[in-house]
């Protein structure tokens, strides 16, 4: 199965199309959500890269986590991520997703997003400016084109590890199983 | 083979006086006497039927020929009505065997015999004074029967009936006196012959007095104030007998008067209008009644209104329809009263509200009631359909489309209130509480008989029509009647 996936990951046409058509589901937690609208609108116009906002995870390719995640919201994020259709990418946005940022000692905020879902690109900054965001997207595009943005595959392969991490913070695990 | 028709009056009369004596010997015998006696009457009526259809049977009593002596005129009409009366009487008396348990029951049976005797006398007699006498016999036994249940409501109803009935009797007597004074005869055929020469003003006054008198028994509006009370307070068989016997006799008297004795065409229009008014007001009043028997009483009035309307048309078909309707009413209304009686008996209340869910507790009785309701609404294939059809058809043929429409509106209202009761029987959940679940076979026999007659006539109306046509012809053909009576015994 993995070979098959790899072969498809290296499909040039598909990767080209994926690269130029990034449909973003912005998970607007924290202060980062405010940076997304300028990115999309006239000044920075992310649409010229084929980046468009989407309303549902079923249709989206990129999950944009725009800030700190409390444990309660982490649960929703995992759920949303699992509802997305592969290939799918995650962008961690801002310091909070990297190491907790200013919430480094909060009892209720996760510190490392990539412990729970596979992150393809982190954009650092508190908060990153739209230029940074677009730069991150372009990095992601490059990785897609090279067939390197395989976070979703990583998740699939190491689901047990991710689950263990997730269950460590989410005590009462009521989520439906992720059936591939 | 028929016996002397006089026996049809004499035997019940005699039996009526015999019953108290028999009752002293054994209470149970008294119960069965009415069945036998009225059964005999029924036999007589049936046996007479083929004969009287061809030519009226004139019975001359004590060898005095018609204008002078008292006679019985058994024409098709009289015979038909006698048949109806004895049929209803017979069936009701079967029902009575078990239903009337209350003391003194032999008196009840006696009065009932008197009622039948009187009514039979009314339809058979050819003498106007005899008509009055039999009317009085019928009325007085009715008053007594109304008050049979010793309850203040019954007594009140009976008293009302008594007051109105007495007044009406007085008017009848006045009318008879007026006629006798001007024509000098009491024989109806003779009067009919001689009335031509009487001053029309006097004749019309006499007629109005008589019409008023008989109108009370025939439940003409507004003379029918006694009816709702009497029907609802009398014992059930008596209510049935009112519908099937008393009213029919009264209607016969009315018809005989206006068709045979008098010769005023205006009275037919009057009858037509009174008929429709009676019908409409009765149906409207029935709609909001709370007691089932009272509702049936109003329905009965309404049906008589329809009959009056039919007779008021004064055409062959119209009168056939009217007589057909009388027959239907005489059969269906007892069915309704008898079944309602049992329902009331079992629910322990006269109110319609308390009949909720009886369809479940008393399926058979409720079925009979529903059947009767459907029949009296005039739905095919029950008998009520044909009579209504003929009447409405004839009304329209005579150009009274509006009257027909009004009569049909009456029918719609009738449908509403009957269905409301049927609805309560079947749709509502029964009230809580223990009830006896028992109908005596006699009652079932009585109601089944009525049901079968309804169905038979509904599916094969021609059988009845063959007898109704001569009856209607008799009413309309006045000269034949006069000739038949006056030449009898010659």
């Amino acid at each position, binding site marked *: 199965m993995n070979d098959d996936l790899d072969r498809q990951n290296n499909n040039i046409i598909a990767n080209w199309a994926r690269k130029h058509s990034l449909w973003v589901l912005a998970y607007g937690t924290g202060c980062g959500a405010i940076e997304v609208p300028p990115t999309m609108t006239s000044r920075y116009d992310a649409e010229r890269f084929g980046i468009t906002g989407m309303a549902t995870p079923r249709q989206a390719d990129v999950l944009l986590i725009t800030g700190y995640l409390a444990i309660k919201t982490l649960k929703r994020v995992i759920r949303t991520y699992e509802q997305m259709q592969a290939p799918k990418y995650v962008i961690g946005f801002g310091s909070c997703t*990297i190491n907790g940022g200013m919430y480094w000692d909060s009892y*209720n905020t*996760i510190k*490392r997003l990539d412990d729970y879902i596979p992150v393809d690109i982190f954009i650092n900054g508190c908060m990153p400016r739209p230029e940074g965001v677009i730069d991150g997207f372009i990095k992601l595009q490059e990785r897609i084109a090279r067939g390197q943005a395989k976070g979703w595959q990583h998740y699939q392969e190491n689901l047990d590890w991710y689950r263990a991490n997730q269950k460590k913070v*989410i*005590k009462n695990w009521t989520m439906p199983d992720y059936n591939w | 083979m028929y016996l002397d028709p006089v026996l049809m009056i004499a035997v019940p009369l005699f039996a009526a006086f015999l019953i108290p004596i028999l009752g002293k010997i054994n209470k149970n015998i008294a119960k069965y006497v009415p069945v036998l006696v009225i059964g005999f009457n029924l036999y007589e009526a049936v046996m007479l039927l083929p004969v009287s259809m061809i030519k009226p049977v004139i019975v001359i009593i004590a060898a005095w020929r018609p204008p002078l002596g008292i006679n019985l005129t058994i024409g098709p009409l009289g015979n038909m009505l006698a048949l109806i009366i004895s049929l209803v009487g017979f069936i009701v008396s079967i029902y009575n065997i078990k239903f009337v348990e209350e003391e003194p029951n032999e008196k009840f049976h006696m009065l009932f015999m008197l009622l039948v005797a009187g009514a039979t006398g009314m339809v058979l007699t050819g003498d106007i004074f005899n008509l009055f006498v039999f009317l009085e016999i019928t009325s007085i036994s009715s008053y007594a029967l109304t008050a049979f249940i010793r309850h203040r409501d019954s007594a009140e109803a009976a008293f009302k009936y008594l007051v109105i009935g007495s007044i009406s009797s007085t008017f009848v007597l006045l009318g008879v006196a007026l006629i006798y004074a001007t024509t000098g005869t009491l024989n109806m055929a003779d009067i009919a012959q001689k009335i031509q020469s009487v001053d029309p003003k006097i004749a019309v006054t006499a007629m109005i007095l008589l019409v008023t008198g008989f109108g009370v028994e025939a439940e003409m509006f507004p003379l029918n104030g006694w009816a709702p009370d009497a029907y609802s307070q009398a014992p059930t068989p008596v209510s049935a007998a009112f519908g099937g016997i008393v009213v029919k006799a009264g209607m016969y008297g009315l018809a005989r008067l206006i068709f045979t004795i008098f010769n005023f065409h205006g009275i037919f229009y009057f009858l037509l209008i009174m008929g429709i008014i009676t019908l409409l007001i009765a149906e409207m009043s029935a709609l909001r009644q709370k007691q089932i028997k009272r509702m049936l009483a109003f329905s009965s009035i309404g049906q008589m209104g329809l009959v009056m309307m039919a007779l008021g048309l004064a055409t062959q078909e119209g009168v056939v329809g009217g007589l057909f309707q009388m027959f239907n009413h005489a059969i269906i209304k007892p069915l309704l009263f008898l079944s309602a009686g049992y329902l009331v008996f079992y629910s322990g209340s006269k109110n319609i509200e308390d009949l909720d869910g009886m369809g479940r507790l008393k399926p058979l009785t409720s079925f009979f009631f529903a059947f009767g309701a459907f029949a009296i609404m005039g739905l095919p294939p029950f008998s009520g359909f044909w009579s209504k059809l003929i009447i409405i058809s004839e009304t329209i043929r005579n150009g009274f489309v509006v009257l027909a429409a009004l009569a049909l509106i009456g029918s719609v209202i009738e449908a509403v209130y009957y269905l409301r009761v049927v609805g309560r029987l079947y749709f509502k959940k029964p009230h809580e509480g223990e009830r006896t679940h028992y109908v005596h076979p006699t009652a079932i026999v009585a109601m089944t008989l009525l049901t079968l007659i309804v169905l038979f006539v509904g599916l094969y109306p021609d059988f009845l029509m063959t007898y109704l046509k001569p009856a209607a012809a008799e009413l309309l053909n006045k000269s034949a009647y006069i000739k038949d009576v006056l030449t009898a015994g010659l």
Partner: protein
Amino acid sequence: MDSKLIKEQEIKRNINNAFRSAEVTVVRRRRISVRFRAGILPAFISYLKEYMGFVHLVMISCVDWLEDNQFELVYHLWSYEEHIHAMIKIRLDRDNAQIKSLSSLWPHAETYEREIHEMFGVDFEGHPGLTDLILEDWSDLPPMRRDFDTRAFVAETFEWRKGREDAQDVRQTISARYGETIPEFKKDK
């Protein structure tokens, strides 16, 4: 006391007339503070609401006096007529913190009470549903209590990113991991 604070003084008098045990302090213009017993709090607050015109419950807050082994609940009320802010302060025993709920007086008090229950572990009697509000399935000490050691908790629950325990430059680590060139920061002119 400032003679200008007539309204405040009058309210203080009125409160004291009704509830002798209430310690009313006029803090400053438009602000009074009341200390009261926990036992008949609903009666007192409904008196303030019905008769004194304090119809608006602004919020409920809680202070953890660890040294006194007490919680202090502060009910902030506002009177639209007099434009006065009243703080009703209730001291509760820290070990067995229990008080009657005000949700029958103000439905929105439910939310505050849920939060205080969650964060401090104060039990509100008569509350229709003291369920989780912000935290889900919290099994530790209520986190806002002062004896809750946040850093220990964080260290135990979450993993720190390697190399990010302090504020060092991690670009080298990342580039090593993903094989990307490190962009040079452009110096501002």
